[in-house]
């Protein structure tokens, strides 16, 4: 295996491969910054240029481009509350509040460093777990995916500050929106009003562009003034603060990377769930859970680390079974076949050095992204200080073009605007938009896996499948723990008070 690790790296050290990696990363960063366009578009556009070069260079170009988009998407989430892609949505929750507080540079630094550490940890874990990937993939099925989604739901509580009822209403609204379109089980049109456009449902990235970006621009216009007014809020942070943050929370980075790796490995659990799950996990394990959603740097590090590690994980089903884990990977597979690489279990034995080349590429691409990111972060952080007369039209036009570009449909622009208005009022009346998103993402995952589990394993599948049962118990415990803890604390306080009183009376 050591030979393969070294061999994989040596192949990459050619001028052509390195140049292609750089081109891929820069291109990916640019695509990522545009809302609505993400890794899939980046890869699809690169594909025609991949014929006739050496294998390492082609892989460098493709993987570099794919990885560049991830951090590119995080940038706009942090600076403008505009998710560059659906999966970087979780970065909006704490990244944008940090920007508003004058810590944009720190947030960008933490995000870039989180992505790098996630990428590196992900690669290391990947290398270690190669022998167990197949058994684990075969052990987990729809009922376990269902439990993961249910666990994701528990995060609704985190965002329901003030009123749990309002939080629930927002989440249910998200679920209802997700149900628009052809039902995934019986192919019956639901809530489509005979409209052909609605048959495919509401596109998630488009809804997010509206809900966050357009709503934010409306808010900015109504409020007046820039997102960050330097005469009021000084930029107090540096990139190094962010880098330090990432290293200080190394436990969080490790957990998030592992999570990202396995979410990548499992087909059927998408990266947009990954970002949210990372966030949920960060909030649940944090020492300051009440700071989440208000600009806690942990909420920035965790999703980026997860997304960084996710890429390496996504390679696994593609390589081990020849089954692409996601659409981005499906495009990579097309390129593999074009290059004469036949994916399958042999990849993990005979062609192991090629696998390690890819793992190295993930690491190197992340390193490049982070270096570039740390370099440009202070300049990017100035963008939110732009006057709204420049900012609002600029961001709005990019958003509307992005909404159109996701599927090339003009109806999507209307949908984005509709969600913009909805998002504006939800924010104004304190209905959590984050809960809406969680409902929308998890609804389909829950419906799909609940149905499959019931048909395959019967009505009592939770109790007949040991792994599912263990996960179920885990969910109950992690959800109940904060309540038990606070009750114990209260009881201890009460006892202390009555003890004091008793003491007072005695004396």
């Amino acid at each position, binding site marked *: 295996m050591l030979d393969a690790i070294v061999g994989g790296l040596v192949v990459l050290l050619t001028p052509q491969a390195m140049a292609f990696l750089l081109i891929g990363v820069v291109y990916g960063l640019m695509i990522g910054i545009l809302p609505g366009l993400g890794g*899939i578009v980046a890869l*699809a556009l690169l*594909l*025609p240029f991949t014929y006739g070069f050496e294998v390492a260079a082609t892989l460098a170009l493709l993987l570099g481009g794919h990885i560049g988009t991830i951090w590119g998407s995080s940038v706009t989430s942090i600076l403008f509350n505009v998710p560059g892609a659906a999966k970087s949505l979780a970065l909006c929750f704490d990244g944008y509040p940090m920007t508003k507080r004058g810590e944009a540079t720190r947030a960008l630094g933490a995000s870039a460093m989180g992505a790098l550490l996630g990428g590196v940890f992900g690669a290391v874990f990947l290398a270690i777990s190669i022998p167990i990937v197949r058994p684990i*993939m*075969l052990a987990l*099925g*729809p009922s376990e995916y269902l439990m993961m989604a249910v666990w994701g739901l528990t995060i609704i509580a985190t965002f329901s500050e003030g009123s749990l009822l309002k939080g629930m209403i927002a989440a249910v609204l998200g679920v209802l929106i997700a149900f628009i379109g*052809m039902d*995934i*089980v*019986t*192919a*019956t*049109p639901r809530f489509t009003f005979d409209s*052909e456009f609605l*048959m*495919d449902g509401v596109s998630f990235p488009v809804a997010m562009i509206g809900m966050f970006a357009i709503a934010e621009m409306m808010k900015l216009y109504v409020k007046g003034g820039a997102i960050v007014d330097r005469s009021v809020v000084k930029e107090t942070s540096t990139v190094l603060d962010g880098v330090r943050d990432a290293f200080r929370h190394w436990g969080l980075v490790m957990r998030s990377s592992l999570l990202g790796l396995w979410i990548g490995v499992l*087909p*059927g659990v998408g990266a947009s769930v990954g970002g949210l799950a990372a966030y949920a996990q960060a909030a649940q394990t944090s020492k300051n859970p009440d700071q989440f959603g208000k600009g806690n740097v942990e909420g920035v590090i965790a999703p980026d680390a997860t997304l960084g590690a996710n890429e390496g994980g996504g390679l696994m*089903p593609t390589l081990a*079974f*020849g*089954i*692409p*884990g996601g*659409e981005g990977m*499906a*495009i990579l*597979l*097309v390129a593999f*076949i*074009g290059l004469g690489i*036949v*994916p*399958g*279990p*042999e990849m993990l034995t005979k062609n192991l050095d090629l696998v390690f080349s890819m793992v190295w590429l993930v690491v190197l691409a992340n390193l490049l992204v982070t270096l570039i990111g740390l370099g440009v972060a202070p300049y990017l952080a100035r963008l939110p200080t732009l006057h709204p007369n420049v900012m609002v039209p600029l961001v709005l036009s990019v958003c509307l073009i992005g909404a159109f570009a996701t599927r*090339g449909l003009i109806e999507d622009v209307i949908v984005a605007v509709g969600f913009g208005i909805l998002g504006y009022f939800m924010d104004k009346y304190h209905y959590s938009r984050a809960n809406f998103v969680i409902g929308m993402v998890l609804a389909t995952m829950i*419906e*799909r*896996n609940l*149905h*499959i589990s019931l*048909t*395959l394993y019967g009505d009592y599948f939770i109790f007949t499948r040991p792994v599912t049962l263990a996960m179920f118990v885990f969910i109950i415990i992690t959800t109940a723990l904060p309540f038990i803890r606070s009750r114990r604390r209260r009881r201890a306080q009460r006892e202390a008070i009555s003890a004091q009183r008793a003491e007072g009376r005695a004396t």
Partner: protein
Amino acid sequence: MKTRTKWLIAVMAASLVGGFAGQAAAQKSDYYKDKVVNLIIAGSPSGGHSRYARLIAPYLQKHLGASELRISNMRGGGGLKAANHMWRVKPDGMTVAFGNASTLIFAPIAGSKGAKFIATEFAFLGRATSEPRMLMVGGKSSIKTFQDLQKLDRPFIYPSQGTDEDFYTMAILSDALGFKLKAVTGYEGNADTALAVIKGDGDGHITGWSESQAAIKSGDKRPILVVTSQRIPDYPDVPTAIELASAGKRGMLEAMSNILETHRSYYAPPKTNPEAVAAFRAAVDAALNDPALLAESKKGNRPVSFMNGNQQQAAIEQIARESGGLAPVLKAAVKAIQ
């Protein structure tokens, strides 16, 4: 026997018509010269249709003489969305779709609410490829041959994405070859269903031959039945569905495999300008016989199997007439999952 003869006549007639039209088209038309042609791929950018459409595109553009061939992807409803769109497009021949013709035929027969078109009224412009399709079971499954499947004392569990052409195929197989079927719908994609089969959650599924090659080689999957009309040289022992059918059911399976073999094709809206149709068919003909394309297709392991547009049109009309008998089976299958 009766259907057999009818088929024979149809194919002969079709090739005759095809032959004449082929000659007519040989006079090169300038209809598309220096024009911009839009090609809509009915599927995602990562799917098989895209792969083929993009492989052929440069050659098609050359033989059309078009100044540009603009490719876009329209996914949704397993190709139905693009078909519905094509149904309403201006029939000047400047917008052409590339997708799975068998979906166009199956969906209306099954009474799918998503299909808002009549398949035979589209102008079919030529088939690029038709890949053999097979029924696969998991490598560790107790089912080793199709006979094992028929002897099964429980329903055959079939993980499925929904009502696509493989779902319809499975329903017809179960009816014609006499085995009980339990379709589990709701899976997200091919990766998901393939893993379910390898894992043993499901018994088997239908895929294109090339798609499962790696899995067969590694022992993760085993082919037990060919659902298209001919045995595959790489797996000479795997029977075709038609061979195994009783005389009474054979016609049904022939209709099915004929539908499946219409596969990846170009098509234009109804009442498309005949001059455009002739010019496009000629260009598809020339492109798919271009030695440079053939070399590239061989190198990239993406085999083409061309069928002339005129021939295809006649064949599809014939298929649609013959396959009315499938309707009750397909409708029952859709009902079973609802």
